[in-house]
């Protein structure tokens, strides 16, 4: 039994090393929104909804353990995040009704995905205070999600309608860059942003190791 617990803990730590990263949060949160980011406005609105849901979920994962026991933490966090997703949907309907109707259920799905990515990354295992995402990590992930979805929407609109914000596609529509306007191209954009986020994560981790080495 002790051996199994040790193996289980080692496996959990390996999984944790993959999901407790900004990259995982950005990729998991942005995926549902890629399908709906058909214009710059749609992509930016989806990105904003995902960003707010990531920040709210990060705040809730820190508040919930203060008043909820281990058994209740996940359902309480899910319930509170669901209320946030509903309120975000109301806000989108009030501010941009036409876009809200065009996007349908996608904003709610994107919010749920953003919140789930934070829950998976931060909850479930014992987490020392120093191991949690910092405010910089959360804001960076939120901004990256906005960039991904807005960029996908911008390129899709540019290549399918021929122009965006007065800028014409011109010869781009007939070049190989046109793939970025398709669904598969959206995944390529997500992959590019994920690489950049992962690179900042490695350089940030490297800087932290360097500081610890100096202190030692």
């Amino acid at each position, binding site marked *: 039994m002790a051996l199994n617990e040790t193996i289980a803990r080692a496996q959990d730590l390996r999984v944790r090393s993959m999901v407790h990263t900004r990259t995982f949060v950005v990729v998991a949160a942005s995926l549902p929104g890629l399908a709906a980011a058909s214009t710059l406005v749609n992509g930016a609105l989806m990105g904003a909804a995902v960003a707010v849901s990531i920040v709210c979920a990060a705040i809730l994962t820190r508040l919930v353990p203060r*008043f909820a026991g281990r058994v209740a933490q996940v359902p*309480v966090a899910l319930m509170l995040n669901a209320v946030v997703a509903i309120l975000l949907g109301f806000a989108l309907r009030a501010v941009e009704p036409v876009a809200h109707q065009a996007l349908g259920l996608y904003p709610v799905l994107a919010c749920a995905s953003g919140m789930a990515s934070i829950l998976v990354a931060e909850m479930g295992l014992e987490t020392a205070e120093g191991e949690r995402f910092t405010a910089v990590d959360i804001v960076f992930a939120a901004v990256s999600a906005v960039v991904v979805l807005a960029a996908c929407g911008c390129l899709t609109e540019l290549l399918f309608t021929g122009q965006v914000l007065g800028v014409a596609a011109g010869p781009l529509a007939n070049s190989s860059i046109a793939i970025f306007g398709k669904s598969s191209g959206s995944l390529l954009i997500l992959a590019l942003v994920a690489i950049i986020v992962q690179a900042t994560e490695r350089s940030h981790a490297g800087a932290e190791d360097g500081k610890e080495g100096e202190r030692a």
Partner: protein
Amino acid sequence: MPSSKSNSQSAGRIARAKNGAIYTLVLLLVLTGVGAGVAALANVGLYGAFKASDAAIEEDKGGAQRALIFPDATSFEQVKAPDIEGLNSVWKSDVGDFVFDVQSAGYHGDVELMIGITADGKVAGIQIVAEDETEGIGTNALTDEYLASFKDMEATGTLTVKEAGSGETHVDGVSGATFTSTAVVGDLNIAFEAFAEVGGN
């Protein structure tokens, strides 16, 4: 020393209580009520904003359909609609063409159409706004082909699918879709009457 021991004991009691079934149940019930209450309050508080949003959606949808009828028009402005039963709204383009949002009783509820009439009094096009006619039967009178048959027709007089009386013009209905054909013709008559009242013909 005794105070730190009692602090740790009380912390342990609190932790055990938080993990208890009754505490968990009460917490979930309270949060469910709070969450539902917040969502309901937000829905009530934003009622006015939602109504404005729905109006904006209708306007955007209508704008797209008006652009289909008159693709060369750069802008439309809403004008005061005459008091005619079945007439919902009247829009005028920058070049003097009109778009009438009208509805008449079909087989299953009203058939609402958007009918464009040019400044010189000819039917420019018809767009379907809302209908609930029987698929494959009533909808045969709402096909692009049937609606296009009214294009370039003079927007005067009264149309009928029955035998024309004095002052009436007979038009063909769709066999098996009499109610819907009658609704389409009724919509056209409302649009013709409104066109005459807003200054056309």
